[in-house]
């Protein structure tokens, strides 16, 4: 029932499915570590998907499409930053508004492209390595987004923990008053962190519309932005746990489809709920192990300098 060929294909699918989530949640993690909760991930992702597709379709270049998606995600994140950081509005409300705005704008941008298709980002082929049994396709047969997500993960992990920029960013997220007293431009730093989040969400959107399912359809993100948000909490704001969370979620969502295909008679509704159940169980386990204390102390609190 489960031979090496299927196993290899399953592993490769899991990595691909997890990549969208990893990209989007990495960006959000950075924004949150700087103290800003941006619920606009879904909106920034879908705008990235739409603009990325439109650009790639118009220019014929997937690279330009990807860059445009990143810029589009950033542009929408600036709308959020303007409201939540510079006007100190409620972050939850502003984030939700950003998502709703993003879904609408993306539908508008994408409307002329409904029913068209692209050749998606090609998968890597390394002679010898890609054909390795079981792990070959997973490690050496993915598209560029997958490798980019891992490079980005390494950069964020290192950057947050080991660099001065990371230290300042974390300080702003833990206590914006103290960081402000030390002379750090709190709002500017938060804006940059939110923009990084927007860029990552845009890139995640591009992964969907340029590689995973290379076409445009309204609402094609189908709630993945919200899962990315949940994964940040799941990871206790630590990038490496984010990797574990995204791959766990990807694994359960792909495996449940295979279990159904084998016709084991397990109710599909239960199987469809599994990724979410697994996430909840893991969350509970993490907080029981006292690892859930990682929320930045100033998360969600607007900073107004003269207060």
């Amino acid at each position, binding site marked *: 029932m489960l031979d090496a060929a299927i196993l290899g294909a399953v592993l490769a*699918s899991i990595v691909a499915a997890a990549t969208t989530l990893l990209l989007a949640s990495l960006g959000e993690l950075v924004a949150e570590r700087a103290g800003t909760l941006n619920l606009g991930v879904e909106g920034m992702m879908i705008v990235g998907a739409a603009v990325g597709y439109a650009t790639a379709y118009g220019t014929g270049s997937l690279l330009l499409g990807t860059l445009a998606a990143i810029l589009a995600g950033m542009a929408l994140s600036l709308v959020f930053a303007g409201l939540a950081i510079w006007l100190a509005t409620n972050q939850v409300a502003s984030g939700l508004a950003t998502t709703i705005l993003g879904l609408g704008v993306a539908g508008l941008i994408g409307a002329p492209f409904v029913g068209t298709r692209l050749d998606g980002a090609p998968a890597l082929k390394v002679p010898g390595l890609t054909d390795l049994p079981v792990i070959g396709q997973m490690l050496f047969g993915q598209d560029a987004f997958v490798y980019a997500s891992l490079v980005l993960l390494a950069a964020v992990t290192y950057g947050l923990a080991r660099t001065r920029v990371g230290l300042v960013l974390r300080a702003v997220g833990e206590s914006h008053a103290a960081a402000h007293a030390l002379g750090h431009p709190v709002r500017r730093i938060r804006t940059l962190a939110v923009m990084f989040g927007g860029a990552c969400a845009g890139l995640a959107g591009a992964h969907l519309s340029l590689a995973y399912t290379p076409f445009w*359809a*309204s609402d*094609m993100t189908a709630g993945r932005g919200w899962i990315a948000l949940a994964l940040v909490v799941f990871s206790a704001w630590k990038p490496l746990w984010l990797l574990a969370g995204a791959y766990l979620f990807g694994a359960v969502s792909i495996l449940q489809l295979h279990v159904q*295909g084998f016709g084991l008679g397990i109710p599909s509704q239960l199987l469809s709920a599994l990724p979410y159940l697994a996430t909840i169980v893991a969350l509970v386990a993490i907080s029981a192990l006292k690892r859930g204390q990682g929320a930045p102390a100033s998360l969600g609190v607007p900073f107004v300098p003269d207060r």
Partner: protein
Amino acid sequence: MRKIISMAVAIAAGLGLAGAAATGALAAEKLKVAWVYIGPVGDFGWTYQHDQGRKAVEKEFGDKVETTYVENVPEGPDAERVIEQLARAGNKLIFTTSFGYMEPTLKVAKRNPKVFFEHATGYKRDKNVSTYNSKFHEGRYILGQIAAKTSKTGTIGYIASFPIPEVISGINALMLGAQSVNPDIKVKIVWANSWFDPAKEADAAKALIDQGADVISQHTDSPAAMQAAEQRGVKAFGQASDMINFGPHAQLTSIVDNWAPYYIERVKEVMDGTWKSTDTWSGMKDGEVVMAPYTNMPDDVKAFAQATEAKIKSGELNPFKGPIYDQSGKLVVKEGDVLPDKDILSMNWYVKGIDDKVPGK
């Protein structure tokens, strides 16, 4: 300052009233018709096709109608609010195009007896509520025959959405068609538990292909599965729209929903004052279920499919004609009998030969 503001408000209100009166006068000449959609008009599937029907109405009647639509309306309390608003906005005919809008439509219809409602895929009617649906299972029977003739592995992959009668009767019709060609054919079913989630639909298609299915059929709304089949070099059937663009080498055919004839007819009846509450279940012979061109198959398979299509249109062939056995081997439809429509519309059992269980049963 306050005076200026209050003056401005008064003027604005006056203008607003005048504006309302003006549009009211115009509206008296135009028939206002509204559609409520479950998905986005850009889904290139179910909702897209309903919207094509709406556009056909606009084209047919031009200045005589004014159409509006609300997309992405969740099934539940939101639906009732949206339908109520459309009724109050002066729409005389409202099409609600998803199964879950059934109760909200009926509730709003009770409160607005002068407005006509049309609910797609439901089974409850009222004085001012009609229901309409298409016999998609007629098309699925043909898909089954083509799949059985095309598949080399003997396994058809089926991406299903939710275990409701419409989807289950589709699976059964496909299987009966396939069995008419190859009694040993297998079908693998994966439930997406969603009508529209492109990435998940693609994942489901890949999982089925990995497990040996080489013809993919879908009852979800996006072209993702077709595209995945194209990438992997297997065959597939489109859903709701002609998806040949997404699978130039993969698509065998698509079941295309064509709502335009029904919509035009019903709008005309409201204009003529002849609208009545009806239950319409049209199929291939009415042009409501249309098969996209048969492609990527040998000529003999194509001719076979066309012959079946002609027989279904003439009424010579009914997909649910006996003998039909259920999974336990019990004879459900006797030789020569045909499964009554109401039993198709409430189907919650698989035919013999499907090696799986109906979810939740």
